[in-house]
Structures are given as structure tokens and as C-alpha cells.
């Protein structure tokens, strides 16, 4: 009898344990399927920051915006970044807002700091996970390409109601996995 109660409790606990990670999966799959596609040009990263082992640390060209009333946009605050696409699919930033915009795509970003009326922020996606060993090579590729001046590296990002996920990382005009195979 006593065991029965514990079996019931374990069943409930197990369902909860399975459900919480599943919410991440459902939400992410929805973003990847239905989200609008944007290309984010990558930028060189701070070399001291480079090697992380299991992922490639990313930085993006579009990481700041001029804000008029910058005193309001204090640091560490969550803000909503309005974005549009240019003809080639690359992202263009159009403004920062305190409240959720009523129209158009937007991404929730955290303000890193503000200097001379320019707000710098962190995107919720700045890591690309690869398996150990591969990430190191990938980062080398990423760094070389980003300082070469060719500017043909970008992240494919899906955006849906404020959330954004990286779909793939392109380096030298190819998906990173292909570039790594050729290496």
C-alpha cells in the first residue's frame, strides 16, 4: 500500500522531469519552423575569449544602435530590438523599445552598456555548440575568416515573437560543417 503511493509520486515526478526539457524542445522547434529567417554577419571576437572547448563564441557586426534618450535604456535591462531584412536577407536594426512592439519582428536583448548615445547589447544567441575537438577547429576557421576582410560569414537565425535561435553557422560561404570537412 505504502509502495503504491510512492509509485504514484514517482510517476508524477517523472512526468514533470520529462516535461520541462520538452518545453524547451517544443518552443525551439516552433521557432525553427515558423520563425522568420535573418542573416547576422559575424564579427571578429576577442582572442583572449576564444577557446571555449565545446562551442564557438560568436560576435556580430550589428551589435549596437544609436539611442536618443539613452539615460532611459540603462544597463542590464531587457529591451526589445526591432529588426527588418534587407534585400539579401541580412538583418537591419531599426530601434530599441521598452515595450513589446506591436508590429514587425523583434528580439529580446540585454543592454550591455551605453556610451556616447550608442547602446551595445547581447543577443540571446552567441554560441554555436559543436562536439569537443571540432569546436576548436571551427573557432580557428571563424577567426581567420573574420579577420580576412571577406565578410562572408554569417549566422542563420530564426526569430519568432521575441525569441531567436541559431539555425546554422556559415563560414566562407558554406555551412560550418562542410567547411570543417574540407579542412
Amino acid at each position, binding site marked *: 500500500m505504502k509502495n503504491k503511493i510512492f509509485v504514484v509520486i514517482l510517476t508524477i*515526478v517523472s512526468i514533470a522531469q520529462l516535461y520541462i*526539457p520538452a518545453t524547451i*524542445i517544443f518552443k525551439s522547434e516552433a521557432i525553427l519552423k515558423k520563425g522568420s529567417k535573418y542573416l547576422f554577419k559575424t564579427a571578429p571576437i576577442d582572442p583572449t575569449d576564444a577557446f571555449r572547448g565545446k562551442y564557438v563564441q560568436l560576435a556580430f557586426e550589428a551589435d549596437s544602435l544609436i539611442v536618443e534618450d539613452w539615460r532611459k535604456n540603462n544597463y542590464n535591462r531587457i529591451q526589445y530590438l526591432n529588426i527588418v531584412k534587407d534585400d539579401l536577407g541580412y538583418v537591419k536594426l531599426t530601434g530599441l523599445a521598452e515595450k513589446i512592439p506591436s508590429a514587425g519582428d523583434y528580439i529580446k536583448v540585454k543592454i550591455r552598456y551605453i556610451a556616447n548615445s550608442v547602446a551595445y547589447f547581447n543577443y540571446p544567441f552567441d554560441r*554555436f555548440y*559543436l*562536439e569537443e575537438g*571540432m569546436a576548436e577547429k571551427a573557432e580557428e576557421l571563424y577567426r581567420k575568416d573574420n579577420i580576412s576582410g571577406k565578410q562572408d560569414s554569417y549566422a542563420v537565425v530564426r526569430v519568432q515573437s521575441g525569441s531567436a535561435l541559431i539555425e546554422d553557422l556559415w563560414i566562407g560561404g558554406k555551412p560550418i560543417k562542410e567547411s570543417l570537412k574540407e579542412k
Partner: protein
Amino acid sequence: MPLLVEKGIVSDQQSKAILEHFAQQNIKKPNTAIVAFSIIGSTLLAAGIILILAHNWSNLSRAIRICISYLPLVVSQIIGFWVIIKKRDSIAWTEGIAAFGFLSIGATLSLVSQTYHIQGDFRSFIFNWMLLGFPLVYLYRSTTAAVFYIVSLTAWAIAEKVALHGSLGYWPLIALIVPYYIMRFNNDIHSKIVTIIGWFLSISLIFGVFWAINDITEGFKVISLIALFLGFLSIGLLYFKDEESFWMVPFSRVGLLGLSVVYVVLSYRDVWKHLSFTQRPEVMNAVGLLKTGNITISILLPILSIILIYKSVKIKKWPILLYSIGLPVALIGFTLSDNDLGRVIITSGFNLYVLLCGLLYLIRGIKYNSGKSMNYGFVMIAAIVILRFFDADLTFIARGLVFIVLGISFLGANIYLAKRKARIK
């Protein structure tokens, strides 16, 4: 045993009684080594499964990656059902599966996040992890899970404090583990389990006072800390025997050590400059305190310890009275310390107070032949004397002399005590 019966050393009945006695002892006291190995083994197993399956991670499809991410968790749940139905009385099994289950939740969460390149925010990750792992404590009556929970909760509180301004959520969440401790405590107060959780719980609570209280005046924080340590000391005095070894009585050790450190720190004049209640008027007003919710902690803690102190005094545990004096003195001190004269008075007070505590312990140690008591008293006195001599601008010779005098009296007293003990024996 059959040999002993044959030779007539023990009778048949006696032999049965002896065997039964040992059999019962075996049931009561599980083999620590087996329990430890089952915990370590299951932890390694969980890590191993993930490493093997994930070695070709990047080339796997998303669906397969998710299946792999879920594998350790599902395996732990299946084994869990078996343990609950068949092996609920085996400590090795329940502790092992609880450790495995707890860790696989974290593994699944982080592998799923990696699959979607979500860098994840440490706070929500560890929060989900500890809450999903928490039921395992009571489900398997597992101390390993309890320790994991306490550690991750403490880490969460610190991360929360760094990112925002406090994490009052720590308090109700740490309260959830207390019934488990009490259950174990009522079951067998001298068990290793009670000791282990005692250490983790008491140290976590110190972090709690430091980190899980929103911005308040440092003075209030010190008051809460003193109250916490007094509470610990009372619990130790009320429920545990003093003769137990150092590791067996975490609450009194942490309490006594904590109080000694806090009181020695309060004997510094500069410290008081930052502690004055008037330093931070904006958080001093009652509305501000209520708003941040701290009032509950910084008032509840002292009230709780006063109850415990009262209980200890009733059974004549005198050390608690001696150490309790510091609480009202500190409280008065915080209101006095906004000017130089006040600070001089209050620090002199604390210097004398620590000296008095040390002296009383020293005398008690010599009187009752307790080396522990005597040496503790010595350390307290030495701490105050050395610190004050360093503050004062004295020559090296003078400082050296102080050290020599302290060293000789320390050695002399110990030799004297050892000799007297030998004589009594």
C-alpha cells in the same frame, strides 16, 4: 560459531542470540563503502553513457540528439520504479538511484539546450534542475539528493544575487529540506547522515544570510548572522553531546566558530564605520525594509534564535548566555557607531568581550581538564592580543616579545594540563 558451540564455549541458545544480534546490527548500519560506491558508480555511469553516445554529436540529426539527451533520465526513471517497488529498504540502491536521477536531470537539460544552441542562463538552468531533483530527496529518502539540492540551491542564490539584487526565494526553498533533516535526526541523531546534512545545511545558511538577503544595511546583515550562529550553537547545545568529535556536531562547531570570527571582526574600529545604521538611511525606514521583504528574515532569524537560546538557558547551558550578550551589544553598537566616540566605546566593548569569552573558556578548560576548551580560550585571547598589537605601531622587538609570551604560556598550559591528566589517570 558452530565451532564455539561444539567446544562448549557458548550454548546453542547463546549462539543464536549472538548471530541475531549481529544480523540486526547489519540491518541497522548499512555498509558505508557499498553505499559510497553505489553513489560514485551511478554518477560515473550517467557521465559515461552521455560521453559515449555524444562522441559523434555534430553529425547526428536533431531527433537522435534529443533521444540521446533523454536517455539517462528515462533509464534513471525506469530503474527508479524498480527500486521503489523492490528495493526501497536498500540504502545502496536508493542512494545510488537518487544520485543518478538527480544528475541525469541536469544532463538532459543541458544537452537539450546545446542541441538548439541555447547558451542558457545559468540561473534558470540550475533552478529547473534543483526543483526537478528535489522530490527525489523524499521519494528515495536520499541524503545524496538532499546534499545536491542544498548545494545547487546555494549556487542559485549566489547567481541570483549577482544578477539581480537578492534572492529571498532561497529561504522558502531551503525550508523544504528541513523536514528531511528532522526526520533523519529523530531516526538516529548520531548517524552519519545527520552529520553530513548538518554540515551542508549550516554552511549553506551562512551563504544564505550573506547572499540571499536583498540590499539592506550591513548592520542588519551582521545582526542576522549573529542570530544565525547563536541559533546553531543552541541547537548544538540542546540536542548534541559536547563530547562528540569535531565532525559529529556541525551546528555547534559552525556556530561557535562563526560567533568567534564575527566578534573578533567587530573588535576592529574601521569595521563599524560601514556598519552604522545611519549609513544607509534609505533602507533604514520600515517601508523600505518591508518592501524588500528582508524584514521577515532579519526579524524571523533573531526571534527563532531567541527561542532556542531561552530553551538552552532553561537547561543551564551557560556558553549560550555568554555568546548571546553580543547580540544586544552589537545592536546598540550600530546605533552608536556614527561618531568616533561611539566607535571607541563599542570596539573597546567588543575587545573586552572577546577577551572575557576566551578567559572563561580557558579557566573552564583548566578546571575540567578539557584541552579543547582551554585551547579555544587561548586562541580567542591570542587573536585579540595579536590583532591589537599589530594595529598599534610597535617595534618588531615588542611584537616578537608578545608572540614569545603567548607561545610560552600556550605551551606551558598544555604541558601542565597533559601532566595533570596523566596524574588523574
